[in-house]
């Protein structure tokens, strides 16, 4: 029986000779079907173009017309050793997502570099992507050596440059082979033109690669795809991504923590009972008890659990023209699990030329970056370096896969060791999930002081950072919740009490609620503070009466002065300024953006990450 096939992706800069190399490989190993070369010669003649080996690969009319590779393609061929699938990946920057598609299926890669031009940007980007995709077996071919007269010094210079670059990525090429794809030198047969080269030919190097194998000794990760009920059985199906499981094993399901024992590995048309299964197998299991388990949950053994995280850092490649931006929410998919995640930070955008990096606010198409993601739901995950298949995934925006990533850092949360689903979600859990604490920001001040304007601007700013936030505006509340209340002193007190109670519920739910009310009396605000407790933050939006009256955004001062409104705060009713507010924002002196900045600083300090439970020492809470 044949050996397992090996999947080789051919990558590199446009016009450095990928398709020509493949055409040559197919021809020189006798893998082209009868008539193919004649067909290509005829086609070239009709178009009035010289014969090119690359045309053997071009399947699409547009590819033949333009002489470029547009989409990735796969071609089978054999050496004496074993069958291969050659994956031809386009070199053009516009088709990088096709390159990624091809390369992510590969066991090994050939990186093609033009001897005259050296490693250009796409060569480097492709090398970086190989690394990101987890293709660890790489060989470099230095092509078009005929154009530099098989000059050893030129070869050495190109070889050193690319070895240095790959080395910085942690990739060590198995060989750097000087070839001429057009002439067929050093592909299947050795050439006399480069006697100084003692390494393998391309074919010898291909045969030296090994198919990717997953060791059964790794920790078990069995992500569920689905639950079937074909009869009275309840079969949990999925593919084992790493490790192995046996009938009789106790499995725990992340992130719920439910436990159950495997009573059967179910197989159709299988004469003997199946007793164990290992990485790579698509299986179905039955359990000794009915637990809540669904698509996305990951079964593991008790002694080797995945991490449970709300926050993690990923190294990411961005595929689409709409950039990734801080504050935006995407769907993250790892194995079969999907979670909504918000981009908290772009820690580093990496320059593929020299591998330097700079922090940023966005990641653009075809860029590589390190990004911090936060989820409201707990994610079961591993570091890509430990277990690649449960440590990598994609981001989805709307209907499309927009980026792929490796998990490089995980911030474990306190819930990591919880073993039962908790119906009472704790304050800490909510805070961990949201990335901030819940709280009440009580904006008090005269009508016209700028409370609503500030409240809305703050709400927007927090929302864009991915925070859970909502404004309870005095006027808006009076249209609904408190529609039955008037403006008597009792009704005004009741209005404030109800808003405080509502704000407390929001804060309990983990949100930052911004209450924007004149609330003129100290006694009423003291009651609100009593309701809100430690989460109550009194913020005096301060502007003197003259300023407010001059602004008069709703024309109320004018009407009050005209005697049309009785008991108007500041005119005919008192405003008791707070004696010890948590923060004073003087909108008479600060412009709008300064006021917002000051408020944001305060909110960050009072409710932001620095206050999250168990995060006193942030640096040590990262698991590297």
């Amino acid at each position: 029986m044949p050996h397992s096939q090996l999947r080789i992706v051919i990558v590199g800069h446009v016009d450095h000779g990928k398709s020509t190399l493949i055409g040559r490989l197919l021809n020189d190993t006798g893998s082209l079907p009868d008539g193919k070369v004649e067909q290509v010669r005829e086609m070239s003649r009709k178009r009035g173009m010289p014969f090119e080996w690359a045309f053997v690969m071009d399947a699409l009319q547009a590819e033949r017309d333009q002489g470029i590779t547009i989409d990735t393609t796969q071609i089978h061929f054999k050496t004496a050793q074993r069958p291969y699938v050659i994956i031809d990946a386009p070199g053009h920057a516009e088709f990088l997502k096709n390159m990624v598609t091809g390369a992510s299926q590969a066991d090994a890669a050939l990186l093609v570099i033009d001897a005259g031009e050296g490693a250009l940007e796409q060569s480097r980007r492709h090398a970086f992507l190989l690394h990101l995709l987890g293709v660890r077996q790489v060989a470099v071919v230095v092509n078009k050596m005929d154009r530099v007269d098989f000059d050893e010094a030129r070869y050495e210079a190109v070889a050193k440059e690319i070895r240095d670059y790959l080395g910085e990525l942690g990739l060590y090429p198995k060989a750097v082979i000087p070839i001429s794809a057009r002439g067929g030198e050093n592909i299947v047969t050795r050439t006399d033109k480069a006697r100084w080269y003692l390494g393998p030919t391309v074919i010898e190097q291909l045969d030296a690669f090994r198919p990717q194998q997953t060791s059964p000794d790794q920790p078990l990760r069995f992500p569920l795809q689905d639950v079937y009920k074909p009869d009275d059985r309840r079969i949990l199906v999925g593919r084992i991504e790493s490790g192995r499981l046996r009938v009789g094993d106790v499995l725990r399901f992340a992130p719920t923590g439910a436990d159950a024992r495997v009573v059967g590995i179910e197989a159709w048309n299988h004469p003997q009972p199946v007793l164990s299964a290992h990485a790579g197998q698509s299986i179905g299991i039955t359990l000794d008890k009915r637990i809540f388990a669904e698509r996305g949950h990951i079964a593991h053994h008790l002694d080797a659990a995945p991490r449970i995280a709300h926050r993690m850092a990923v190294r990411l490649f961005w595929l689409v023209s709409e950039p990734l931006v801080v504050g935006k929410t995407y769907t993250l998919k790892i194995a079969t699990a999907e979670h909504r995640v918000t981009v908290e930070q772009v820690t580093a955008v990496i320059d593929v030329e020299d591998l330097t990096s700079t922090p940023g606010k966005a990641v653009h198409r075809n860029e590589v970056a390190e990004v911090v993601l936060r989820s409201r739901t707990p994610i079961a995950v591993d570091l890509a370096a430990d277990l690649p298949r449960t440590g990598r995934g994609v981001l989805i925006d709307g209907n499309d896969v927009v980026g792929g990533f490796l998990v490089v850092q995980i911030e474990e949360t306190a819930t990591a060791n919880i073993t039962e689903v908790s119906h009472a979600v704790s304050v800490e859990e909510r805070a961990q999930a949201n990335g901030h604490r819940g709280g009440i920001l009580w904006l008090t001040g005269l009508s016209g002081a700028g409370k609503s304007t500030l409240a809305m601007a703050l709400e927007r700013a927090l929302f864009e950072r991915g925070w859970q936030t909502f404004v309870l505006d005095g006027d808006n509340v009076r249209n609904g919740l408190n529609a039955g209340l008037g403006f008597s002193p009792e009704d005004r007190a009741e209005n404030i009490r109800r808003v405080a109670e509502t704000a407390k519920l929001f804060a309990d739910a983990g949100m930052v609620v911004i209450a924007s009310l004149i609330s003129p009396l100290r006694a009423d605000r003291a009651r609100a503070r009593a309701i809100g407790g430690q989460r109550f933050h009194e913020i005096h939006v301060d502007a003197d009466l003259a300023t407010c009256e001059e602004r008069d955004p709703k024309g109320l001062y004018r009407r009050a002065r005209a005697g049309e409104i009785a008991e108007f705060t500041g005119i005919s009713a008192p405003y008791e300024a707070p004696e010890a507010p948590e923060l004073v924002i003087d909108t008479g002196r600060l412009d709008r953006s300064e006021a917002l900045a000051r408020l944001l600083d305060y909110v960050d300090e009072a409710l932001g990450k620095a206050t999250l439970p168990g995060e006193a020492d942030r640096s040590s809470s990262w698991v590297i």
Partner: protein
Amino acid sequence: MSADLDQLENQSIYILREAYNRIDKLALLWSIGKDSNALLWLCRKAFFGRIPFPVVQLDTGMELPEVYEFRDRIAREWDLDLIVAQCPPEEEMDQTLPPLTRAAARKTEGLKTLLRDNAYQGIMVGIRRDEQATRAKERVFSPRSLDGDWDVKDQPAEFWDHYKTRFPEGVHVRIHPLLAWTELDIWRYSKREEIPIVPLYFARDGKRYRSLGEKNITFPVDSTAGTIDEIIAELVVTRIPERAGRAMDNEAEDSFERLRSSGYM
């Protein structure tokens, strides 16, 4: 043991289960050839014996009698939810297509009618990358516009095996669980699993069908292979392309590409 076949089988089952979980309304195209028979078999494995979606034959009325016989027997024995969808006549096809390609286009139109009438969101098809150069560029989950067009220049990324499974209204997706298989793999697997085969694949009077299609556009090729073992031995050494007996492929340089980009399987 045949580790490579196990790997292909596991991968295909994974894809079938993804499709079944992610796509609301699914059907499987059954041409009754060797590949789609293997695909049906893989479905029975993936879903523990009973295929949980309809199996559709796009019928032009031009299949050989052995094919119809085989269809009816297997549908009964495997308890398939079989739908036989009639394809529109050749006169209704795009008359700018070369004649044989036009005959093949009937299936595309039959499929479009099927999609319109049943609002399937996903169609599973047993094509392989090694069959034909444009199929080599396919995705595992391959979206089509409402009228079946395939935009080969703008296909979704497939990062590892994270397939595109979300689509706007009106788009359907072709699911290709056998893309990674070769002709030889299919035969080795059919032998190992003892999957039933239409007898036309086995040589009679020095000829056999290597790729089985309608009688007006597919022809048997020279062969003496009368058993699966002999077919496997033949494939290991042959340099004749699999679709040599498919007349339409060789009609014009881009015949097959044109067929495929307008929705052919």
